[in-house]
């Protein structure tokens, strides 16, 4: 059985020969750590990205079958993006940087993964109309026609992994432009329509991007949204506001995919997602990912109990076990066996593997998971 068949069968409740060893990538600091420990070649510790050549090299070295977040798509963000600009260097070396989304961040020396949000440009209608709206328009430049002409032959047919089409982000990208606080203020701006206008403008552009790629004949196994709009207590906005402003945009893109025969649509959202799941599922998003068990205490089973077999999942393996010992990994494998028996579920570490993750334990997990026959 191929990896692609295995994934599609699992998510359609059909038999498979074994479970796949699926992952969701790494913190850059972990790859540096592993290179320093001599576990991986130094060149694999730099330039890693979901589904790129280095990712697939690491898959071979570790024993993974594939990264679930292996998606392809056109330029679906701000275009052209803002030029990254260092605005100020503080005495401790911290840089205030305007990033490609127009968000101003503090980049602390020695910290790669997580910048600190400091300020943002998109504060009112004038900023939207002059700075952002022109960058949120669909144009042919967003679609690399040459790439999509060759994609089926050179990518889809060549790789034995389930491949996703990027469906962009209804809200997550906008949050990245303005920060969590800025997004909250925009929702309650005196110009009550502004937040909805931003969402609608951005969504229209992303829809047309997806449509253009599908019209070009590119083939995919699933669609994939990215959001990250929840935290440990739930969503970063009211589910009612989310339903009112965002639901239709998920539906439109999911309906489009189904027209092209793609019925699996996953959505990457960190945190406790329970209060948004109904909106996602009702509008066509049927795969929860990565279902963060370790950090936030999220679980797959409650969603399955709530929605039945309509609700699929990828993730929910507590990645923190991979920093502990074999016994912790074995316990996690046992828990996974129970989840897999529900069907429509592919286990995968519940987020990027973080510093301190033990290389040998990851290899052990990848080997053992492949021995499970659902």
């Amino acid at each position, binding site marked *: 059985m191929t990896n692609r068949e295995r994934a599609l069968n699992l998510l359609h409740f059909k038999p498979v020969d074994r479970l796949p060893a699926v992952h969701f990538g790494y913190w850059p600091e972990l790859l540096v750590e592993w290179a320093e420990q001599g576990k991986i070649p130094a060149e694999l510790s730099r330039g890693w990205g979901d589904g790129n050549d280095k990712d697939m090299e690491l898959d071979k070295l570790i024993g993974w079958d594939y990264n679930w977040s292996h998606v392809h798509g056109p330029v679906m963000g701000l275009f052209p993006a803002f030029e990254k600009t260092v605005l100020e260097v503080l005495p401790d070396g911290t840089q205030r940087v305007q990033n490609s989304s127009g968000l101003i961040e503090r980049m602390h020396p020695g*910290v790669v993964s*997580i910048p600190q949000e400091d300020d943002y440009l998109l504060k009112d209608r004038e900023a939207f109309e002059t700075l952002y709206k022109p960058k949120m328009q669909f144009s042919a430049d967003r679609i690399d026609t040459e790439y999509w002409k060759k994609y089926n032959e050179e990518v889809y047919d060549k790789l034995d992994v389930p491949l996703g089409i990027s469906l962009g982000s209804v809200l997550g990208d906008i949050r990245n432009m303005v920060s*969590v606080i800025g997004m909250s203020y925009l929702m309650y701006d005196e110009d009550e329509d502004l937040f909805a206008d931003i969402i609608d403008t951005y969504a229209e552009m992303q829809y047309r991007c997806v449509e253009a790629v599908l019209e070009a004949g590119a083939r995919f196994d699933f669609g994939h949204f990215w959001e990250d709009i929840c*935290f440990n207590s*739930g*969503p970063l*906005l*009211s589910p009612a506001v989310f339903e009112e402003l965002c639901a239709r945009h998920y539906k439109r893109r999911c309906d489009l995919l189904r027209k092209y025969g793609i019925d699996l649509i996953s959505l990457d959202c960190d945190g406790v997602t329970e209060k948004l799941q109904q909106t996602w599922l009702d509008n066509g998003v049927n795969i929860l990912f990565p279902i963060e068990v370790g950090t936030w205490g999220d679980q797959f089973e409650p969603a399955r109990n709530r929605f039945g077999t309509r609700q699929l999942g990828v993730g929910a393996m507590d990645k*923190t076990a991979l920093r502990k010992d074999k016994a912790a990994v074995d316990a996690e494998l046992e828990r996974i066996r129970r989840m897999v028996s529900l069907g429509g579920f592919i286990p995968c570490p519940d987020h990027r593997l*973080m510093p301190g993750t033990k290389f040998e334990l990851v290899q052990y997990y990848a080997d053992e998971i492949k021995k499970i026959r659902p």
Partner: protein
Amino acid sequence: MSVFEEISEKLQRGKAKDVAALVTAALEAGEKPEAVLNEGLIAGMNIVGEKFKKAEVFVPEVLVAARAMNAGLKVLQPALKSAGVKPVGKAVICTVKGDMHDIGKNLVKMMIEGQGIECIDLGVDVDPEKVVNAVKESGAELVCLSALLTTTMTAQRDVIEALKEAGIRDQVKVMVGGAPVTQQYADEIGADCYTLDAASAAQAARSFFAA
């Protein structure tokens, strides 16, 4: 509806300009600044906090309410000072060493300030020594430590140890929070309090100062 109820109502809806105008009007009408603070602004934030705990409102509503609270406080502050009204207490708050996340910390800060407690915000990625110095300089009686990562939550213990070494552990209550933090972990590292969300943190902070 009394002016205090109006202030509370507008604050809950995040109407910063209205809150500022109502506070001005209340003061001009001869209401005592302390009453405007307690029965208007803090009462409003308490309702927001309760609703947040019950998932009746979410982060944006808390943030805009806090913004409205600050707008009201800005108007009220000079009157409070003239009347000799002191803050309920002082707290030092930060995200611990190695951790850059500040959304949770900022939420807790806003909610704690909404209880009339003065907050000294040390920011993110903060050394234990900086916390010790801030406590010594400000005389704060509460230290609030945030961590979002399993890799950085251990730094909460480092701060508690640094407070012990400096001989000031008994002078302060230490509150810890953040996604990976649990009551069990808080007990293990010797923290005085763990709360699940920002609203509970604010209530706990208020109870420390009321005790």
